[in-house]
């Protein structure tokens, strides 16, 4: 009897299906349930492991079967196709129209340089033992054997710059916090990923939450902060579940709490939910929100590194910045710095979004061009029409025309063409896009999301919508209205308190500059 059980267990096939929100949105839960049902009724044993997403969104729901130590992918697999796939021998890796091959060898994956996303889509996100088995917590262990100043130096040497979009050197921010003498410091993670076309924070938090937790713990022990907060946008319920589960386990196992891994150092961590305000991605308004207030932007100085949360020195970094730390501490600054170009060191998790055939996550060293991303990875537009423009860096990013698609992804190269890399989101549009309407939308979005503290942003955005409406309507006043729009953009850019009002002109002016025909034709 016991022998029969053992042989039955040995015959169990391990099957992986993503639990990432994007996969679930395309039916991954139904596919997973169908797999369990079908295997039960057919007697074929399976062990279902829910993982993060590999980032090949067009293939979701992706089903991976472990065959001879390798993971063979099938996708996209709807719930209705499961039975036929099992009958065709999917559990043995058999051939089928949906069979993709060994997932790690697919060009989309094989051509990437996955450092921060190394575990995402590979391990069960909330299984701490799997995290540890895949090099997890090696970085923290090394950091605990170093002084705070040494850790900060390592981060500085790595060349890491803030991945939220501002690209400020992370090590310099940390050094300022380290140097403050005070009773309390904080580490805050900006997980208010509100830019359209971006989802790398979400994928990381859902697919490898311990990586973020470890990164924040490294930050805490380095600068002497004992309390961390993850400020998570409320639109991400799946990430909240993953983070809360991982934090609870990390606490229970001594990776968080009063005595982190027996070091005598304290680091507590909590998740705080946002409430649907784009402005909270701006760090000072996020801090106001964490304090329980209206999220109005603060004047700077003082910098958050000196007077941040509750007036105390605060490290505030984006999810990807913090999640890059375990790798940097584990492998060393030089390892990380060897990737990239110019002053943009390391890798960037790029998100291919909008009208793109193979949308998803591509982690590459800085230096990859837009063209490579859009065509070699993205496979062109989803509609099959020519890609007319891409907006990079969220709703405040410039629209870039096809003639500039050879620009390498590099902070300085993008600045040189009047664009920004931001958080690495690329939204593709085909030739049906009306750029005057996109410019109007940029102003409308700013009007909806303005915190209201400064006039150029609060009032300027509304006037911007009105003047663009008049331009779109046409008529003899069009030229005067275009001049007025330029003037307004100038006021917003130089007169606003923060990036929302200050950068809303970027999409508007880039649309005007590269696609003037859309502003002069009659509709």
């Amino acid at each position: 009897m016991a022998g029969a059980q053992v042989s039955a267990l040995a015959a169990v096939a391990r099957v992986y299906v993503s639990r990432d929100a994007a996969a679930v949105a395309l039916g991954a839960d139904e596919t997973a349930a169908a797999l369990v049902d079908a295997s039960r009724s057919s007697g074929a044993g399976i062990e279902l492991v829910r993982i993060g997403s590999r980032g090949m969104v067009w293939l979701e729901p992706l089903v991976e079967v472990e065959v001879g130590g390798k993971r063979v992918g099938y996708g996209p697999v709807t719930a209705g196709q499961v039975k036929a796939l099992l009958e065709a021998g999917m559990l043995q890796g058999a051939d089928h129209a949906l069979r993709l091959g060994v997932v790690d060898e697919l060009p989309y994956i094989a051509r990437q340089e996955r450092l921060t996303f190394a575990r995402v889509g590979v391990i069960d996100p909330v299984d701490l033992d799997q995290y540890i088995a895949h090099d997890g917590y090696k970085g923290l262990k090394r950091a605990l054997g170093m002084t705070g100043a040494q850790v900060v130096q390592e981060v500085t040497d790595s060349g890491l710059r803030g991945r939220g979009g501002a690209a400020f050197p992370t090590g310099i921010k940390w050094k300022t916090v380290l140097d403050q003498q005070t009773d309390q410091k904080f580490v805050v993670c900006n997980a208010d990923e509100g830019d359209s076309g971006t989802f790398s924070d979400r994928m990381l938090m859902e697919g490898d939450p311990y990586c973020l937790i470890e990164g924040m713990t490294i930050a805490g022990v380095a600068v002497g902060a004992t309390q961390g907060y993850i400020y998570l946008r409320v639109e991400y319920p799946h990430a909240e579940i993953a983070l809360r589960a991982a934090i609870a386990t990390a606490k229970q196992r001594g990776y968080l709490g009063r005595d982190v891994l027996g070091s005598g150092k304290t680091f507590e961590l909590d998740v705080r939910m946002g409430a649907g305000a784009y402005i909270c991605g701006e760090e000072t308004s996020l801090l106001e929100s964490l304090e329980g207030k209206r999220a109005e932007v603060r004047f700077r100085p003082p910098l958050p590194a000196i007077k941040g949360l509750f007036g105390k020195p605060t490290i505030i970094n984006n999810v990807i910045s913090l999640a890059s730390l375990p790798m940097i501490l584990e492998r060393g600054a030089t390892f990380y710095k060897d990737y990239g170009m110019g002053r943009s060191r390391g890798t960037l998790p790029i998100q291919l979004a909008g009208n793109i055939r193979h949308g998803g996550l591509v982690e590459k060293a800085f230096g990859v061009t837009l063209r490579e991303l859009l065509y070699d990875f993205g496979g062109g537009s989803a509609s099959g029409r020519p890609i007319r423009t891409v907006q990079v860096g969220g709703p405040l990013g410039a629209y870039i025309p096809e003639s500039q698609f050879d620009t390498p992804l590099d902070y300085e190269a993008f600045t040189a063409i009047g664009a920004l890399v931001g958080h690495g989101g690329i939204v593709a549009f085909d030739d049906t896009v009306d750029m005057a309407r996109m410019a109007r939308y940029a102003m409308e979005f700013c009007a909806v999301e303005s915190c209201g503290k400064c006039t150029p942003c609060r009032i300027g955005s509304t006037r911007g919508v009105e003047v663009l409406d008049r331009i779109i309507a046409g008529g003899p006043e069009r030229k005067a209205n275009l001049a007025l729009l330029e003037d307004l953009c100038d006021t917003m850019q130089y007169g606003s308190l923060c990036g929302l009002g200050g950068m809303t002109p970027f999409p508007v002016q880039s649309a005007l500059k590269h696609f003037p025909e859309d502003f002069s034709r009659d509709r």
Partner: protein
Amino acid sequence: MAEFDQQWLPIVDSIVASHADEPGALLPILHSVQKRLGYIPAEAVERIALGLNLSRAEVHGVISFYHYFRQHPPGQHIVQVCRAEACQAVQGEATEAHARTCLGIDFHGTSSDGKFSLEAVYCLGNCAAGPSVMIDDRLYGRVTPARFDELMNEWRARK
């Protein structure tokens, strides 16, 4: 969700008390109240203000700042339609217009049968498989107008 019920007051008080020791407790309290009651009634604002030693105006100011907090009872399910650029790039505006027509309401409205409240949302982080729609906590990708109809039928049939 019904109009304010006096029995809710002890619920609000206990939520406030459970967060009493947290720094910056107002947002967590508002989240808990809304999760429990479906919205944040004016009567609750008074109790929260009292509990946190704030003025009612301060609490109201916070509630009205954030798009997510509601001051009136919503429909049975909340339908959020993404209006952001990545969804616009794949005909999200058609889904948006269809949602309004099909439910017979504008954003922030509730359908006459009380089943659905419609909200605009600016990015659900599903930008490689838009247009995106979220119903309560359930996310859907590639929601064309036809798919939106299917979803509405499915959710109408739910209890």
